């Protein structure tokens, strides 16, 4: 019942990934993944929120009455997000302006209250912290993968505007892979986000099926049998 520490890590990063498996927080995931820098910025903010909210919720888990636990969690998460928003406004002002409404909207990211309710409210502080960190990193990983994919396809660059996140030396981090006038605009538009997301989920499922198929050759046969059955119907 009680997951081991490795289970927590593997769940957050892969098996129960908030972006690819739980499909939580799709709104910021799809809206902000237009470039890699935006993705990293929002990913860090979300990870910090998850980590802090999991720790705080776990701390008060014996004191919050069940009837009012959800409003209490929301208050905690909202205060954390407000603090992070003010911090980003102070230190990453350019990025803050680009991410705009999606920073305050981290409050409504269901991945965060989901972890507070499902994990942090029943586990000790260190375990809750690890879970928050791993879920956040898993979410950030998907954001970055999606951001990199869309940025390369859409405008032919990687890490454009990196100075918003890393300061002046970020100017040198931008990679121009091909001239941007041939960019595949669809990748930057909302439908491109959905398609790229679908492809990422498909890729994850395909990788999983490759790992599952290897140990038992019998499992492979049943897989092909079920695949062929719609043809016979």
């Amino acid at each position, binding site marked *: 019942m009680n997951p081991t520490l490795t289970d927590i890590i593997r769940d957050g990063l892969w098996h129960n990934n908030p972006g690819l498996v739980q499909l939580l927080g799709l709104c910021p995931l799809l809206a902000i993944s237009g470039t890699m820098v935006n993705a990293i910025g929002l990913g860090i903010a979300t990870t910090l929120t998850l980590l802090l909210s999991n720790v705080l919720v776990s701390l008060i888990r014996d004191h919050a009455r069940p009837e009012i636990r959800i409003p209490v969690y929301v208050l905690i998460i909202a205060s954390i997000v407000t603090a992070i928003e003010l911090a980003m406004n102070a230190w990453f002002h350019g990025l803050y302006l680009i991410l705009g409404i999606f920073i305050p909207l981290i409050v409504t990211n269901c991945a965060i209250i989901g972890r507070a309710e499902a994990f942090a409210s029943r586990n000790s502080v260190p375990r809750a912290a690890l879970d928050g960190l791993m879920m956040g990193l898993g979410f950030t990983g998907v954001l970055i993968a999606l951001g990199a994919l869309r940025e390369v396809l859409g405008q032919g660059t990687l890490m454009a505007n990196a100075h918003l996140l890393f300061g002046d030396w970020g100017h040198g981090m931008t990679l121009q892979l091909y001239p941007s*006038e*041939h*960019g*595949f*605009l*669809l990748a930057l*538009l909302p439908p491109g986000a959905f*398609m790229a997301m679908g492809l990422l989920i498909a890729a994850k499922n395909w990788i999983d099926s490759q790992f599952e198929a290897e140990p038992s050759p019998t499992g492979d046969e049943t897989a*092909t049998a079920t*695949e062929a059955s719609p043809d016979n119907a």
Partner: protein
Amino acid sequence: MRFRTESSPHMIPSHSVGGVMQQVLMALVPGTLAMAWFFGWGVLVNVVLAVLFAVAFEAAIVAARKRPVMATLGDNSAIVTGWLFALAVPPLTPVWVTLIGIAFAIIVAKHLYGGLGYNPFNPAMVGYVVVLVSFPREMALWPAPDTLADMSLGLGQTLQAVLTGSLPGTHEWDAITRATPLDAMREGLASGRTVSEITVSPLFGSFSETSWEWIGNFFLLGGLYLLFRRIIHWHIPVAVILGVAIPAGFFWMLDPDSFASPAFHVFSGAVIIGAFFIATDPVSASTTPLGRILYGAGIGVLIFVIRTWGGYPDAVAFAVLLMNMVAPTLDHLTRPRIFGRSRRGPPPGDGHA
């Protein structure tokens, strides 16, 4: 002696899928030749390239899905998809644009949904919309019709332009391209001129530009052939054309200076080919008689609305895709009465069916 009883259906249709698609291809020939007459070799180069790509992608993805390759290619649907895509894009479209569009049409719009018969959207139009949205610059380069242009590109020069994306010799894009009638009308109205001032240009024939009128006429010929061979039914084409013409006529009568005539709308751009060849796609269109009329009328009205108030000069592809989304609901709501039953429920006089 025992007679073998076959299970239904007992009436076998006279057309196979491959046969139907062959008829569609034959019906596309006159309109395609008319387009090539006015716009030069590029049309034919595009058709050949797009069909080659479509067949190649179809073969590759069918093989990847471990389905019989030759049987699938035999239904000719990939050829129709490639051909329709090639007619939608400008004649000098660079080859990589065609490649991306066809890849989306065949792989994403068709086979990710399960192949022919399962695709909710018209594959050729998905491919066209993808490149239209993604590469607006390349998609705006319509050459001037040859009858009016000072010079035209030969086959070799056209091939060079399509394959390299740059024009041969001293030719400039600005010199050989020109606004289509829909572009001209759109920009003219936006800059405050009246319809009669715009159509006074020598390019305009009786309804629209002469070249587009003739292209429309030849596609109409092919469409009538399909109707005559009962490959398509009259509902969708008639509904599309009326769906464009009736709202266009209404606004034209209100204010003929700021709204183009219904005849201009019907004979410009892709309305005729869309009505007969694209909207009638048997997979993604509605299938009940009333559903087909509503589906076609919806496409027509959307074409007029997007052309008049939307962001793009022509809208056949968008209108078709939007109505594709509605088609399953239309089919559900317009199911015909089953013989021997009342419209909803059991046969009359029988309480317990």
